[in-house]
């Protein structure tokens, strides 16, 4: 590398020796010595770029993890020094390499990847440089460049097995399967597999088989698979046999494929994919409209499987999906009776899958009513002398109550549902599931605080059960009791951290979402935003986590898992954990944009005083920490505190819409099939006044769900916004030509017909908004919103709440009237309960909880 070093890089012998020492000291992690050596060189040659770079690297590596208060300026110093080093020596691979390493540690993959590319230009055959560079190029999905680097690497290290195999993968990722297989052939002729362990050989072969399938070369793949099984390289258990079934099916050999699925079922008779594969290979299309003939064929097959695999519920459960009418009734009854006898708590969750068919839902209801009736009367379902276990009635009550309160029911019967659960609790008061069910029914009826108290009873029965603990915490959050929830959660989190911190560190998605929602509901948008942004950070971490595996998997030869990782990460953010958090955050950002005053904190004088006190306290603590850090060196050096503990800086953003857009971009790519993505996108673009993007969002939404109520409202909103805006001619032309496909009548007609036809709560809410958008008639908007409280409309507390919020902004004088009607319709809804009644209720619930395990006084014995 240094055959003709430029003049500015050359050092005299003494310094040159020091420089080499500096390299060694860095590698041996003797950072203090290293920095000293660097300083000695820099004293004489302050412009020596490579020394500056190595000093930056050494300094950076010496910093504590996680970063402490005193280390923050040092980190900045290192970053600046690394950049200075580039200026001093722009043709050195060392200066670029260091810049790359620092960027990598910041997880700035793009900058790192650029810096490594520069470094490689200076020193093309440097093995560690190439290796890191490949990982970075792959990580940033620059597959062609990664492939080229892989190629180069193989030329330098042709005797190493993984150089070849990694090239196979690089070709695959780059989309060239034929080339991937060709490299594999070359590899087999060049290198013998002697060094590989059994599991490695198996991983390699299995993955090559996957490539064969992907490349459509099933015949060759099948031969290789057979050979591999014969030679004992791969085990026929699991994926290998599944691949075989796929290849056979692709080759049109249905009989053999069927046989192979049979083998798979013998390995695992609880795998639904195997059953479905088997039925499909039997020539029964499961997705097509089923004829009576194919139905009975399916049921025959399933019933013989049920005999072969008596311990597997799958064939009996699948039969419920494919049967109808009386056959369904017969099968469902047997299935339900068996579940009740065994006391399977998840029976309802299992069976409710068939409820999308209203007829089946009705039949199931009748079956369970009949069972409950018979058990109450005879304590037995059979006609001989035996009795059923007493637990059976209990589980039948439990099932029926969940059935009656299920949201798909046109009119959920909450009172009867609760009544059944109370009977069950009287029967067996020690079963947590009953209180959990009661909590759920209450929650569905809107009685949130009552629900939380019931869930708390379940928890009290087993305080060390984390599942019950988490459920209880979730219900407290739903009831707005954030502090109480956190206290409970702390039972299972690390003792030296706050529960929020620990759960954030552990990437606990449900908690971040639920607490964000709870803060949002109580109007603390800053904290809500903080939790939603924490969710986004977790997903960033999930994405960053893959980095190490670009190198690791090539060494472990787990190529199949690696390729699925790459594909998975590419669509990571379509996960509901990201999706829901992002949508909620975007809504807050649009709210901030519409009314920046909501970011101003309105405190009462008492609150203000308290806040000042807290702020002073925090200031003092920080000053103290700084002082301590300065005097005692590394000891007592606290980690860098959260710069925005209340989320207010997030909320007070200057650029709310751009912040929203940043969260939205991944949805556009990765969740384009969800209508919510585009509805949310519209709200962003219309505020940014990018009308064509807003139009595109509407059109995308229309192609997914043309009659979506929110979309209808947005179309009216778009029409109004664009008709009054000053637009360039070209934009106007596009809108004029596209809008008619969205809005087929006049806005007036559409809004009136929406208002007249609205049936579902969502339709009613958005119709009201549409009407107001078009004619500004508050009276008509109110009339429409009142419909949410009508007898014929499924009660929906979420939209009732939204309506009240809307009225508070537009027509505050109507709030009371509307709220009154909603309350009559949903008498137990906590949100509509007046605060005086809330206090009485709260006391009642509290009393019920205290008496739950007997009052706490000394027993009546002497």
């Amino acid at each position: 590398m240094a055959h003709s070093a430029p003049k500015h890089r050359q050092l005299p012998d003494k310094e040159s020796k020091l420089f080499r020492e500096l390299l060694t000291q860095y590698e041996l992690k003797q950072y203090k010595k290293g920095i000293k050596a660097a300083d000695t060189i820099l004293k004489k040659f302050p412009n020596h770029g490579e020394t500056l770079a190595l000093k930056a690297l050494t300094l950076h590596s010496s910093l504590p993890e996680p970063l402490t208060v005193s280390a923050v300026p040092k980190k900045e110093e290192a970053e600046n020094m690394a950049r200075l080093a580039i200026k001093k020596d722009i043709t050195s691979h060392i200066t670029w390499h260091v810049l790359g390493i620092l960027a990598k540690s910041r997880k700035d993959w793009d900058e790192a990847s650029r810096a490594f590319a520069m470094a490689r230009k200076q020193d093309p055959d440097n093995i560690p440089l190439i290796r890191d560079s490949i990982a970075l190029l792959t990580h940033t999905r620059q597959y062609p460049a990664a492939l080229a680097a892989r190629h180069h690497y193989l030329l330098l290290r042709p005797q190493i097995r993984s150089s070849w195999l990694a090239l196979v993968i690089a070709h695959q990722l780059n989309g060239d399967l034929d080339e991937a297989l060709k490299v594999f052939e070359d590899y087999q002729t060049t290198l013998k597999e002697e060094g590989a362990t059994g599991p490695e050989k198996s991983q390699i072969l299995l993955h090559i088989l996957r490539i064969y399938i992907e490349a459509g070369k099933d015949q060759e793949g099948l031969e290789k698979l057979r050979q591999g099984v014969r030679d004992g390289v791969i085990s026929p258990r699991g994926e290998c046999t599944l691949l075989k079934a796929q290849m056979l099916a692709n080759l049109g050999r249905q009989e053999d494929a069927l046989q192979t699925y049979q083998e798979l079922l013998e390995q695992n008779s609880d795998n639904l994919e195997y059953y479905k594969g088997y039925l499909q290979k039997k020539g029964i299309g499961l997705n097509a409209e089923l004829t009576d003939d194919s139905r009975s064929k399916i049921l025959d097959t399933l019933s013989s499987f049920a005999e072969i695999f008596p311990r597997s519920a799958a064939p009996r459960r699948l039969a419920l999906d494919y049967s109808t009418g009386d056959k369904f009734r017969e099968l469902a009854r047997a299935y339900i009776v068996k579940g009740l006898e065994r006391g399977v708590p998840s029976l309802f969750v299992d069976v409710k899958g068939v409820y999308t068919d209203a007829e089946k839902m009705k039949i199931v209801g009748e079956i369970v009513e009949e069972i409950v009736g018979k058990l109450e009367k005879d304590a037995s379902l059979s006609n001989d002398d035996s009795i059923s276990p007493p637990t059976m009635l209990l589980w039948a009550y439990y099932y029926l109550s969940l059935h009656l309160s299920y949201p798909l029911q046109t009119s959920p019967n909450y009172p009867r549902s609760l009544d059944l659960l109370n009977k069950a609790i009287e029967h067996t008061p020690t079963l947590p599931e009953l209180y959990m069910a009661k909590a759920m029914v209450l929650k569905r009826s809107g009685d949130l605080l009552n629900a939380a108290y019931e869930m708390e009873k379940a928890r009290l029965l087993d305080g060390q059960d984390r599942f019950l603990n988490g459920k209880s915490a979730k219900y407290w959050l739903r009831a707005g009791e954030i502090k109480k929830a956190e206290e409970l959660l702390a039972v299972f989190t690390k003792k030296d951290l706050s529960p929020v911190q620990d759960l954030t560190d552990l990437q606990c998605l449900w908690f971040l979402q639920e607490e964000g929602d709870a803060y949002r509901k109580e109007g603390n948008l800053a904290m809500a935003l903080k939790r939603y942004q924490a969710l986004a950070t977790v997903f960033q971490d999930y994405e960053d986590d893959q980095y190490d595996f670009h190198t690791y998997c090539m060494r472990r030869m787990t190529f199949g898992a690696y390729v699925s990782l790459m594909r998975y990460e590419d669509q990571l953010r379509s996960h509901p954990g990201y999706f829901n958090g992002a949508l909620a955050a975007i809504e807050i950002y649009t709210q901030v944009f519409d009314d920046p005053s909501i970011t101003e904190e309105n405190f009462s004088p008492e609150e203000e005083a308290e806040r000042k006190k807290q702020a002073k306290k925090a200031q003092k603590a920080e000053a103290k920490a700084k002082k301590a850090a300065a005097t005692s060196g590394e000891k007592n050096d606290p980690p860098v505190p959260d710069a925005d503990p209340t989320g207010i800086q997030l909320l007070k953003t200057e650029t709310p819409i751009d912040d929203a857009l940043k969260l939205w971009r991944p949805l556009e790519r990765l969740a384009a099939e969800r209508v919510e993505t585009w509805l949310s996108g519209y709200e962003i673009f219309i505020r940014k006044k990018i009308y064509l993007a807003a139009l595109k969002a509407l059109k995308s939404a229309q192609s997914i769900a043309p009659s979506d109520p929110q979309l209808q409202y947005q179309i009216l909103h778009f029409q109004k916004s664009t008709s009054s805006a000053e637009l360039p001619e070209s934009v106007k032309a596009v809108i004029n030509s596209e809008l008619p496909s969205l809005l087929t009548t006049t806005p007036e007609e559409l809004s009136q017909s929406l208002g007249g036809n609205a049936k579902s709560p969502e339709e009613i809410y958005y119709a009201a908004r549409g009407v107001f958008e078009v004619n500004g008639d508050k009276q008509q908007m109110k009339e429409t919103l009142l419909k949410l409280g009508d007898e014929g409309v499924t009660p929906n507390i979420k939209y009732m709440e939204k309506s009240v919020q809307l009225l508070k902004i537009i027509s505050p004088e109507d709030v009371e009237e509307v709220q009154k009607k909603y309350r009559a319709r949903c008498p137990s809804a906590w949100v509509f309960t007046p605060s005086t009644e809330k206090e009485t209720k709260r006391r009642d619930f509290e009393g019920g909880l205290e008496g739950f395990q007997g009052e706490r006084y000394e027993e009546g014995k002497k």
Partner: protein
Amino acid sequence: MDIRQATIDDLIGMQNANLLNLPENYTFKYYLYHALTWPELSYVAVDPRGRIVGYILAKMEDEPSPNTEPSGHVTSISVLRPYRRLGLANKLMKQSQEAMVAHYKASHITLHVRKSNRAAISLYRDTLGFEVHAMEKGYYADGEDAYGMRYLFNKKSEVESTA
């Protein structure tokens, strides 16, 4: 419930189930490490809505010395409370064990359990056939001892062949 080999797509769901149910938790990367090193060994139980309601996260003991036989290890196994009484833990364990034998020629499987966690000890011993074979002092972060439990595969096949 559907029982199948865990894929990368399942890891977030497994992490979620673990956080809901157990006090010993891990960050996502640890799940990645398992799935990308021993892809065949972890299994999930999935409910009709596609939610992961039970899982076994398993591995092989790394770098076996030439004179010890390959050994599987259960890092974590859990079934959400509402999905008990379906025999899911048993099914998950059995699938993972068979994969250990088929793909890694494992002769036995081990796991750790808190000495105080007698419910878990009962599950492993009475339902899953494990036996305590060692005690590890201060194995857990809070200083509690662990029992090392073990299940020998050849023993099982003997039972099967005599049955």
